[in-house]
C-alpha cells in the first residue's frame, strides 16, 4: 500500500451515471488486477474505495458509478489532485494451468475484469467475457474488451441491448476451464450456482479504512474470518459461505 497524490488527467461520462477517470501518479504498488484504490475527497470523512479498471507505469484508470455524495463529487472533477491509497486488496490470481477463462461482470463489477482480461490474453488463454447491465443506457466496455481479442457478450435485464436476462443466462454454450467474476452479491450467488469449474469472486462491502485495520468489512469463509479489503476482495469459490 502507498499513499500518494495523483493528478486527474481526464474524467468522462461513458454511460448513464458511469464515469471513467484517468489519474497520473505512482502506480508501483498496484500489483494485481482486481485491486482497488481508496480516494480522499474534500469534506468527506471516509475515503472512497474504487476498483482499478486498468493501470500502467504512470497512470491508473477507474470506472465508477455515481451512487452517493462521494462519487457525485468525484464525477464533477475534471482537473486537480487527489490523495489516494494504492495497492489495496489481494486482486485476482492469474493461474497457469488452464486454457480458457470466462469473465462475468455485472454493472460496476465489470471494471476490475478489464485489466485481468488483458493479462489472461497475454498469457495465451482464450477469454470470453459476459458483461451484464440493467439496460442499454448502462452498457459500457463492449468495444474495449473486444479490442483485446476477448469474445464479448452483453446482457441486459430488460432486453434493450444484447441478450435479454442476466449474465448466467448467457453462459450455457460457453466452454471454459475457470471463471472470474465481480458484481452485486445476488449475481455472484447466481454465478456460484450456475458454474461447475473453480472460480474467483470479487466481493463488495461497506469499508471503513480499506486496508485491514478496522474490521469493518469482515466476512466468514471456510478458511476462517477474512477482511474483504485486505484478505479479499477476491475469494475463491471453494472458500465462500453464502
Amino acid at each position, binding site marked *: 500500500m502507498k499513499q500518494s497524490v495523483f493528478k486527474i488527467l481526464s474524467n468522462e461520462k461513458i454511460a448513464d451515471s458511469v464515469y471513467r477517470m484517468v489519474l497520473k501518479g505512482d502506480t508501483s504498488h498496484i500489483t494485481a488486477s482486481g485491486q482497488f484504490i481508496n480516494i480522499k475527497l474534500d469534506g*468527506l470523512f471516509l475515503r472512497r474505495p474504487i476498483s482499478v479498471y486498468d493501470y500502467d507505469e504512470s497512470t491508473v484508470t477507474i470506472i465508477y458509478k455515481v451512487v452517493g455524495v462521494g462519487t457525485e463529487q468525484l464525477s464533477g472533477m475534471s482537473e486537480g489532485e487527489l490523495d489516494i491509497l494504492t495497492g489495496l486488496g489481494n486482486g485476482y490470481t492469474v493461474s497457469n494451468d488452464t486454457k480458457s477463462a470466462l469473465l462475468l461482470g455485472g454493472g460496476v463489477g465489470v471494471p476490475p475484469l478489464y485489466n485481468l482480461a488483458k493479462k489472461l490474453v497475454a498469457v495465451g488463454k482464450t477469454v470470453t467475457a459476459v458483461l451484464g447491465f440493467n439496460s442499454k443506457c448502462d452498457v459500457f466496455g463492449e468495444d474495449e474488451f473486444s479490442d483485446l481479442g476477448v469474445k464479448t457478450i452483453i446482457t441486459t435485464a430488460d432486453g434493450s441491448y444484447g441478450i435479454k436476462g442476466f449474465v448466467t443466462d448467457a453462459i450455457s454454450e460457453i466452454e471454459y476451464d475457470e471463471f472470474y467474476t465481480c458484481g452485486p452479491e445476488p449475481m455472484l450467488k447466481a454465478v456460484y450456482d450456475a458454474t461447475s469449474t473453480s472460480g474467483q469472486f470479487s466481493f463488495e462491502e461497506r469499508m471503513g479504512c480499506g486496508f485491514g485495520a*478496522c*474490521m469493518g468489512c469482515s466476512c466468514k469463509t471456510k478458511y476462517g474470518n477474512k477482511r474483504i479489503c485486505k484478505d479479499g476482495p477476491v475469494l475463491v469459490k471453494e472458500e465462500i459461505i453464502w
Partner: protein
Amino acid sequence: MVDLSVNLSGLELDNPIIPASGTFGYGHDFAELYDINILGSFSFKGTTKDERFGNPTPRIAECEAGMINSVGLQNPGVDAVIADELPKLKKVFDKKVIANVGGFSIDEYVHTCALLDKEDQVGIIEVNISCPNVHGGGMSFGTNPSDAASVTEAVKKVTTKPVYIKLSPNVTDITEIAKACEASGADGISLINTLLGMRINLKTKNPVIANKMGGFSGKAIFPVALRMVYQVYEAVSVPIIGMGGVSSADDVIEMMLAGASAVQIGAANLVDPYVCRDIILALPDTMKKYGIDNLKNIIGGAH
C-alpha cells in the same frame, strides 16, 4: 531540544502518541507502512476470552467529520493473540504494548487479564468496560459505578501490571465512574470510548448499520472527549489517557492541557494510516510554536 516523553504509571513513553484500540489491529499491518517503533506505544485490538466474529455487516456508516462503527469486538481470542499475534508483533515492535481487554462477565475479564499478565510485551492492561457494540456486557459494566468498581477490583487481583479502565461517554456523569474505578485500585483511566449513534439510509429507509446503532468517533467528537477528560482530571488523581477525535499535534496538546498524560488516536488512523507518525514528527515544532519545551509540564495545564 524539546522533551516529548511522558510516563504512565511507571511506563516511560518516548512520546504521548498511542494508536487507539480497534484502529491499529495488532500492529503488524501498520509496520508494513512505517517503523512503528516511533510510537509511544499502541493499544491492540480489543481482545476477549474466546474468538469473536463480531456483528453482521454493514458495520460502518459515515458521518459529518466522523464515522460510526459496529464491529462488535471481532478478535481471535486471547489464546491466539498470545500464541500468534504477540510473537508477530515482537518482530516489528520493541516497545511495550497496551493490551486492550473486552469481556461479557467479570470471570471473562479476569481470565483474559490473568493470561496477558504473563506476557512481557504487555506494559499496561486497558480494560474496556465501554464497548457500545456488544449486548449483555461491555458497556453495561461501564455505565454504573458499582459494576465498574467490581471489574476493576477483580482484574487488579490477577495482574501486577498497571490497569487502566476505558470508560464510556454514554453515561450521565463520567466522573462518578472514574472515581469508583480509582477507589477500586485502577492505576489510570482511558477515555472516551465512542458515542452511541446511528444513521438511516434515506433511499432504503432503514438503518445503515446492520446492528442499527454503533459507536460514533472521529474529529466531530473531540470537544466532547476534551470536556470529559477535563472533568475526570478534576475528579481523580491517577493518570488519564485521553482520546476521542484527536487528529493533529494541536489536538494532542489541547488534550494534554485538559489533563491527559498520553493521547490515543483512533478513527484518524483509518483515513490517514500515517497520521500517528506524522503527528509525532510535527510535535516538536508545534510545541515550540506554543512555547512548550517539556510535554510533561503541560498535563492539566488548563485547570
